[in-house]
């Protein structure tokens, strides 16, 4: 059932063809590995393709479709430890375990990612400042490496391989199975506080002073607001409600949960549908509509965590040329760099909806893991003239501030810039040389950045 397929990431840029094979189980993976080694263009695993760039594609080679390996293998309701196949989605984990009183330890802005992709990119969520990233909740994983062997690795067992695989973008081997520590919850509702801040200074002050009071925290910035209003934003922060915090009508079924049905966006959008005027109007309405200050609002999991999932295929709205997401982080103390980046973005006038700003907590030993203490900013930008130069210049600001860019979102960083951002790249390469001396695992991302 393998077929040559044009694959692209969520940003819908730079598609390339590869032989895509759905695989379930060790033997099927090994068979493709053998073909890939003979073919000379290598192989990479792919989850739900929610990374924005070219991480899960491999021009002229093989790609493993992991999403058919989606079984729950074991669950301990006492501890919340769950053993799963790596192709299972976080959506499915929520459907299965929220009603049992367990939530995923870390969720990105979409539920439609696999556990393999969550480890491969070592994803973070709104709780990074208290909980760290996804790999920190993985007790062990079964990795099938280039030699066809399966290794159970963990932070204790071959930690180098574990921390090269966490954030390693599928380049150390195939994650077949993993044990994930789920998070205990008493209800499926969140208690959310909303604050509106008029500019960047007030935003950063608010987050710095009170983020520690919340488990989940994120700010949405209007990148089109200039001058005094630069950085105006809406901050939403919250936590799961306990049983006795629920209003009476929810108490009978406190863990009720269903992921919402998705409305599909039509396939064709004219290029240029989103222009400065339409987006600025949207951002204005969005800002005005948000309450200045609101406390303890009850919200569902989809509303609080995954508002975009309500619209399936929304990435098509950017038109046929696609878009990039620019996500970078700078350390605490480098607030001026963040201001500079936002200034330049708003001066350039990219028709971007909202940017997301968040404070990261401590990082982890992942060699290519993205989160590190500081401020992280993410925004979608449609492909347009001059964008390559603008983003290269922003990268210089980031490098000067000793910050970095996020591989799961990247589709355009310069290879030498990337290397300066990740000082542990050499350690990562050393692990790859050890477990994959012939370089069977590779991807468009790996080629583009000479990983």
């Amino acid at each position, binding site marked *: 059932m393998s077929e040559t397929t*044009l694959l692209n990431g969520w*940003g819908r*840029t*730079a*598609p*390339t*063809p*590869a032989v895509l094979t759905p695989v379930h189980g060790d033997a099927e993976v090994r068979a493709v590995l053998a073909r890939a080694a003979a073919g*000379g*263009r290598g192989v990479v695993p792919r989850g739900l393709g929610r990374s924005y*760039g*070219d991480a899960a594609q*491999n*021009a*002229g*080679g093989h790609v493993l479709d992991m999403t058919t390996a989606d079984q729950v293998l074991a669950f301990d309701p006492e501890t919340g430890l769950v053993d799963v196949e790596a192709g299972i989605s976080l959506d499915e984990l929520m459907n299965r375990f929220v009603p049992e009183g367990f939530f995923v330890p870390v969720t990105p802005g979409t539920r439609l990612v696999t556990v393999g992709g969550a480890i491969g990119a070592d994803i973070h969520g709104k709780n990074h400042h208290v909980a760290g990233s996804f790999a920190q909740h993985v007790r062990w994983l079964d990795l099938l490496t280039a030699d066809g062997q399966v290794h159970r690795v963990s932070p204790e067992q071959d930690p180098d391989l574990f921390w090269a695989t966490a954030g390693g973008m599928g380049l150390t081997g195939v994650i077949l199975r993993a044990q994930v520590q789920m998070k205990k919850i008493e209800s499926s509702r969140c208690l959310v506080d909303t604050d509106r801040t008029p500019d960047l200074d007030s935003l950063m002050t608010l987050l710095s002073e009170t983020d520690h009071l919340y488990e989940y925290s994120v700010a949405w910035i209007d990148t089109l607001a200039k001058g005094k209003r630069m950085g105006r934003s809406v901050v939403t922060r919250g936590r799961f409600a306990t049983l006795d915090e629920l209003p009476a009508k929810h108490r009978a079924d406190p863990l009720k949960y269903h992921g919402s049905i998705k409305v599909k966006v039509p396939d064709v959008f004219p290029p240029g549908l989103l222009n400065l005027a339409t987006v600025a109007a949207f951002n204005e309405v969005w800002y005005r509509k948000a309450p200045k200050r609101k406390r303890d609002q009850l919200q569902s999991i989809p509303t609080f965590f995954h508002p975009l999932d309500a619209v399936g295929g929304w990435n098509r709205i950017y038109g046929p040329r*696609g878009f*990039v997401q620019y996500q970078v982080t700078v350390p605490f103390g480098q607030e001026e760099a963040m201001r500079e980046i936002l200034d330049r973005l708003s001066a350039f006038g990219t028709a971007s909806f909202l940017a997301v700003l968040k404070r990261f907590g401590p990082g982890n030993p992942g060699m290519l893991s993205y989160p590190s203490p500081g401020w992280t900013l993410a925004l979608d930008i449609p*492909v347009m003239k001059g*964008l*390559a*130069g603008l*983003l*290269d210049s922003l990268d210089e600001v980031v490098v000067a501030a000793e910050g970095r860019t996020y591989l799961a979102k990247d*589709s*355009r960083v*310069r*290879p*030498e810039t990337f290397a300066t951002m990740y000082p542990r790249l050499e350690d990562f390469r050393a692990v790859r040389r050890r477990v994959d001396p012939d370089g069977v695992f590779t991807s*468009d991302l790996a*080629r*583009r950045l000479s990983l």
Partner: protein
Amino acid sequence: MIDALGSPGSLLLVGGTSDIAVATAKRYLQERPLRVVVAARDTPRRAAVADELRTAGAEVEVVDFDADDEAAPERVVAAAAAGGDIDVAVIAFGQLGDQEQLAGDPAAAAALGRVNYVAPVVVGTVLANRMRTQGHGAIVALSSVAGERARRSNYVYGSTKAGVDAFFSGLADSLVGTGVSVLVVRPGFVRSKMTEGLPDAPLSTTPEAVAEAIVTGVRKGRHTVWIPGAMRVVMSGLRHTPRAVFRRLPF
């Protein structure tokens, strides 16, 4: 890989001493450093080009290429691919020839046909095979407005460009879905080594302008570009000019 915003990481210049090829490499280098393979005959100009591109930030490799050598295309492409994938390849070698001599010398006409048509066809075929295996890449072929309608003043040259144009347009169609793209470039009169000493023609342009059009064309995934853009309209007019009139035009 050519990234999401159209920036390549490597460039192969077949006919690497061509003014248009060099301008294209420099235009790319204004954006980012990249690996450039200069395939050309072993001349002092080649060494100078390699130095120039290094100074502009390129990691340069030099490979021998002579269009009269039948084994050259395979060797050049293999050498370029040994250092990593070929993201963009520019096929820029060519000769204008001396029309008066060509008219009277069948051997010279055949030789021009080999350099300007046969060799690009071979290079294009080898490159397309390589890029098909890679699953990505862009081939940039230098055609010419002279190929749109051959004129009495340079019909041998014009006919070779007509052949090149047809070949690469067809090749482009055959590559749909493979991840590989082809850009056919149709410049008018370009002030370069090739046209040195010739009087300026109307709408004349520069290697830099051609380079700009190539970089933008590759970035946007175009199939053909005219330089200057107005040439497209001019040539469509000329194509429909009655022969009796066309023959008498002063070029």
